[in-house]
């Protein structure tokens, strides 16, 4: 696998860049490279940050120099193939759509010319690729939303969007892992916590995973919320061969 550029990012990090576009193929290479770097356990590498099209590799130059690390990474990149990132992992996020859980669902339906049921059906009918996590702990930049669901952001952003809100902004959709200001339109809410600093694995998913939304009725929302509050709810995760 070629086409990797290594760019300086100061004396303690570098950026391995695989292209200049948002595409599954380029992001797949980033994820494969991330997996390869972690598996190689290169002494001095302290942390990696996979993003849309590049991998930030943080390292300690007392242990390994920019030159030596670059050579190691080029060696890994030559041997990469798409399966290095492992099987496709889909994390199922239960969502109660509309009503008090998704105040803007009616507006989204009106703006898209669809019925509320159609919006829900379309939104929950896909596996969304997590291109990267950023902005907030556990905030997933998802790709692949049905274009028919695209709606403009709110003219005036909300001061506080509650944690767990599922929203659409432009051609993007996402879940707010913690309360935050924001201008996306709220269509539903998940009772699970994508981010919980006290949990052993504080973030539910990794970059490179997929998210699937499962519509649930209000009683199930409340039941899951109780379990999640006690740390007893496990999201369903399906794993299929065939790569990311």
């Amino acid at each position: 696998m070629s086409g990797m550029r290594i760019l300086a990012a100061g004396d303690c990090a570098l950026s391995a860049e695989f292209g200049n576009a948002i595409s599954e193929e380029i992001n797949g290479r980033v994820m494969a490279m991330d997996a390869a770097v972690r598996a190689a356990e290169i002494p001095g590498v302290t942390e990696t940050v996979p993003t849309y099209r590049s991998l930030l590799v943080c390292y300690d130059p007392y242990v390994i120099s920019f030159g030596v690390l670059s050579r190691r990474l080029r060696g890994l990149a030559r041997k990469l193939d798409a399966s290095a990132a492992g099987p496709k992992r889909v994390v199922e996020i239960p969502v109660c759509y509309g009503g008090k859980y998704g105040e803007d669902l009616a507006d989204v339906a009106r703006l898209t010319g669809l019925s509320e049921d159609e919006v829900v059906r379309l939104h929950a009918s896909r596996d969304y690729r997590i291109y990267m996590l950023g902005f907030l702990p556990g905030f997933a930049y998802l790709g692949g939303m049905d274009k028919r669901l695209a709606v403009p952001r709110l003219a005036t952003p909300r001061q506080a969007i509650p944690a767990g809100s599922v929203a659409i902004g432009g051609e993007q959709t996402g879940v707010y892992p913690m309360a935050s200001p924001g201008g996306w339109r709220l269509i539903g809410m998940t009772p699970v916590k994508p981010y919980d600093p006290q949990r052993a694995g504080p973030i539910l998913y990794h970059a490179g995973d997929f998210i699937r939304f499962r519509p649930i009725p209000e009683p199930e929302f409340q039941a899951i919320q109780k379990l999640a509050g006690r740390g007893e709810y496990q999201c369903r995760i399906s794993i299929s061969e065939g790569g990311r």
Partner: protein
Amino acid sequence: MTIRIIRPGLLTTIQDLGRTGFQKFGVSPSGAMDRRALSVANLLVGNAAGEAGLEMTLTGAEMEFTVPNVVAVTGGNFAPVLNGASVPLCAAFPVKAGDTLSFGAAQNGCRCYAAFAGGLNVPVVMGSKSTNLKCGIGGFEGRKLKAGDEIGFSAPAAYLPDLGRRFLDYREPKEKEATLRVVLGPQDDCFTEAGLRTFLESTYTVTNRSDRMGCALDGPKVEYRTKADIISDGIPFGAVQIPSGGKPILMLSDRQTTGGYAKIATVLSTDLPLFVQRKAGDKIHFEKISMRKAQAARRREFREMLKLQDKFL
């Protein structure tokens, strides 16, 4: 076994050297802004360099101790006073139960650090004791300190061997202008030749749009080739972003982990302490150096820290 906060100062938080390994999940690393100052304070009191201490900003705190311990103060000079008598910076000193340590406004520098032998007893969240203000995690209840807070010591030491030897020369960072060395990249190719020259040859002023996330600079606009936006990627400590307005923003401890502005250069890790001690109105210049020299500087500093560790541990 505590420090009782009498007066918290403007922004006093508990910080260590940051939260490593969670940027991939979108969690800012946080940690001390002046990592060298915190490390030195810790080494002076016999701690590992990465133990948590207090970071004070512009105005210092006042605190009372309920048990004896050994303390060291580094970074900006906030005129520290123990029971009314001034104490030197960069030197370990003992405190007794009932003693009061207080700090004033910054005489020089912007951030002052206090480390305590044995460290602070606060929960480790995602591998770090650092306060992340935006997420409300780490440190003391995930927030800045306020009057009445009681912070526990982990293992206070009434006595440390060779207390009289636990000091370093303190150099007042007097100069109002600082030169920050940078390595160009990762997106220096987004800028014109003229833009790069502007960046490297101009004087920039630290503005008051400055916090633990980042610091906006004022000065000549850096010219783009085409546009300011890139496809979001990771942001290292000290990255210099140029948003569409053309004026640099330095990305610091509580920075977002990813961002969509082109990054023209990254300040050397060894020069960041110089920058984070600047106040609004101070002037800075950027100087380009090679990766080889940048990493040599980093290694030199690391060796100096090892020497201090040998000396004081």
